[in-house]
C-alpha cells in the first residue's frame, strides 16, 4: 500500500519537474514551451491565492453549483438511461430529441441559459447539469443493454414485477457501467464550469480563471486550471470511491 502511494507521488512530482524543466529552459521542439509559465511561477501564485478569502468563496460556489447540477444529472440521467434502454417505445420517443441536444456545446448554452432561467445561478446549474447528464445517460443505456438476460429471467420466475426487476437486477447489474458514466459526467461537468460561470459575472473558480485569461495572466490561468483539476480530482475520487464500494462484488475490483 505504501509503495503504491510512493509511486503516485513520484508520478506527480515527475510531471511537475518535467513541466518546470521544459518551461524554464524554453524548449521549442515542435511543441513550444517557451511562452508557458513555469511550475515555480504557478506555485508561487497558487500559494498567494491560498491566503485570500475570495479564493475559498470561489471554491465554495463552484462546488455548490457543480454538486447540484451533478446530483440532478445523476438522478435524471440514470433514470432516463434505464428507460431508454428498456422501453422501445419510450426510447424511440425520447432518444431522437436527446441525441440532437447531446452534442450542443455548454458554451453555446450560455445565451440560452441566460434567456431561459429567471436567475443566473439556475442557468449555471442548468449548464453543469446538461454537461454531466449525457455521459451518465449514455453509459447507463449501454450498461443496461449489455446486461445478461439470465438475472432478469431468474427474478421474473421468482415472480418479480417489472419494477422489482428494475430495482433488483437492472440497477445493481448496470451499476459498474453507471459509475463509469458518473465518473465521466463529473469530469465533463468540471470541463464546462468555465462556460457555465461565464454567466455569473461574479464568483467561481471557472469565472476567475477566465477573468485571468482576459488580462493574459497565464500564471493565473494555470492556477485556475490546477484548482479546477484538483477539485475535479477530488469530486471524481469521491464518485469512484462510492462506485468501488457499490461494486465490490466485481472480480476486478477485488484485484485492485
Amino acid at each position: 500500500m505504501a509503495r503504491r502511494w510512493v509511486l503516485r507521488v513520484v508520478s506527480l512530482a515527475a510531471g511537475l519537474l518535467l513541466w518546470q524543466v521544459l518551461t524554464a529552459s524554453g524548449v521549442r521542439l515542435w511543441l513550444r514551451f517557451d511562452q508557458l509559465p513555469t511550475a515555480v511561477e504557478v506555485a508561487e501564485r497558487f500559494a498567494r491565492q491560498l491566503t485570500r478569502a475570495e479564493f475559498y468563496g470561489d471554491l465554495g460556489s463552484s462546488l455548490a453549483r457543480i454538486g447540484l447540477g451533478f446530483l440532478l444529472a445523476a438522478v435524471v440521467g440514470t433514470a432516463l438511461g434505464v428507460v431508454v434502454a428498456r422501453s422501445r417505445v419510450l426510447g424511440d420517443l425520447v432518444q431522437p430529441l436527446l441525441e440532437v441536444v447531446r452534442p450542443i456545446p455548454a458554451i453555446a448554452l450560455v445565451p440560452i441559459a441566460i434567456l431561459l432561467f429567471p436567475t443566473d445561478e439556475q442557468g449555471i446549474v442548468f449548464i453543469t447539469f446538461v454537461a454531466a447528464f449525457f455521459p451518465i445517460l449514455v453509459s447507463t443505456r449501454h450498461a443496461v443493454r449489455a446486461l445478461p438476460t439470465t438475472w432478469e429471467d431468474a427474478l421474473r420466475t421468482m415472480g418479480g414485477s417489472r419494477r422489482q426487476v428494475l430495482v433488483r437486477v437492472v440497477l445493481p447489474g448496470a451499476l459498474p457501467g453507471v459509475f463509469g458514466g458518473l465518473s465521466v459526467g463529473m469530469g465533463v461537468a468540471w470541463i464546462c464550469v468555465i462556460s457555465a460561470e461565464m454567466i455569473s459575472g461574479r464568483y467561481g473558480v471557472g469565472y476567475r480563471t477566465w477573468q485571468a485569461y482576459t488580462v493574459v495572466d497565464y500564471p493565473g490561468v494555470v492556477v485556475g486550471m490546477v484548482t479546477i483539476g484538483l477539485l475535479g480530482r477530488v469530486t471524481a475520487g469521491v464518485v469512484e470511491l462510492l462506485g468501488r464500494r457499490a461494486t465490490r462484488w466485481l472480480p476486478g475490483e477485488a484485484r485492485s
Partner: protein
Amino acid sequence: GGAASDEVAVVVGYQSKTINTVTAGTLLRELGYFERRLDALGQRTGTRYRVTWQDYDTGAPITAQMVAGRVDIGSMGDFPLLINGSRTQDMGDEGTRMVSVTGYNARGALNMVVVRPDSTAKALSDLRGQKVSTSVGSAGHGTLVRALDGTEVVVENQQPSVGASALQGGGVAALSQFVAWPGQLVFAGQAKLLYDGAALDHPTLHGVVVRKPFADARPEVLAEFLRAQLDATRYLHANPLAAAESVAAATGLPPEVVYLYNGPNGIATFDLSLKSVLREALRDDVPLLRSIGDIAELDVDRFIDDGPLKAVYEGTEDLANPARITGEDPVCGVPVADPAAAGEVWFAGESATRPAATPDCLLKQVKQAGKQVRAAYVPDAATGTRWFAEHAHWVRDGDRFLPFATEAEAAKRGAVLTYAQALAGA
C-alpha cells in the same frame, strides 16, 4: 433579480478590463458612490436598494443579460453599444437606451494595432496577406477595417485574450484591439505599436446603456447612477493616480497601463456628455457594423436618450480633456500647460508623478534623477496620443527631441532614435 418585496434590486453589468468604462464600472464600484447615493435616497423614500455588480469579459453577455431583463445598467464600447441597441430595437419600449458616455478619444486612439517586438513590419501595408487578429464587432475591428483601406489581410476573429496568445505564440502577425490591450502588451514587452487609431481621426467611445423598463420604473435610481458616475468622473480627474491604482488592484492590470489611458491628458477623456461628434461617430459606425453581421439598421437618435443625463448634468460639447497635467516642471523650471507637449514621470517608490513641460524636459528629468523609472509618459508629437516614453520612437528636430508612438510616423520626420539614444542625447 430575486429581491425581497421591500427591496429594489439594481444589477449593474460592466467590463472591468475595459478601463475606458471605469467611471460606470470598476472605479465606481470601488468608490461605493452609487451605493452611498442610493442609501441617501432610501432614507428619503423609505425604500431599500441593493446593488449587484457583475463583471463580464465582453459586451455580448451584458446585452444578453439585458435582453433577459437581468442586468439593468450596463457599460460597453461603441460597437457593442450599437449591437445592444440594434438587438433590443424590436423590443420597443422594452428595449434599451444609451444614457451617457463614460470615456472617449476624439481621434480614435483607443484602438491600436500591435505586432510582435521582433516584427519587421513598419506599416499596415506590410501586413498584406498575413493574419491579423481582432474581435469582429468590436471597436478594434472597426479601426482595423477603416485603417486597412484596401490592404488585403487575413482577419482572424478572436476574443482579445485569444488574440493576445496567438500574437505571442506566433499564430498571427498583428493584433488590432481596443483599450488596455495595446498598452498592456507593449508595456509587458510582448508587442510594439504598429498603428495608432488616432491616425484615423475618427472618434471612439464607451458608454452606458439602461433597460428602458427599468429607467421608466426607477428614474430616481438611474438619476442617482448618473450622479454617481459624475462623482466618479470628478474623482478620477482630481485623483488620477489613486484612481489608476485602485482600478489596477481590482483588475490585475498594471497601474502603469491604467494610468497611461486614464491619467491626466490620457488617451481616454472621461466625460458623460453625449456630444454631437460622438453621436455622429456612432451613426457612421452603423453601416460598417451591418456589413459584418446580421444586424438590423439602428436608429441611433432614438437609441440615445439624453433626458436622464440632462436632468442631472448640463453636458458640454468641448472636446478638451478636463484632466490636465499641471504644476511646475522641476528641471526646466517652467509651468506645465500645453497638453500637446506635457508629460509625466513616475519614479519607482514615489507615490506621485512629476510633471514635465516638454519631452525634452522629461528626458532631462529622467537623466538627472538617475532613479529607477516606473513609467514615463509623453504625447505623440503628431496626434497627441499619450504613450510610454520608453516605447516611443524619437526624432531629433533641431535641439528638440520629438516622440512618436509609431515608428512609421517618426520616420517621416527624420532618423529614428530609440529612447535610450534620445536619453543619451538629452
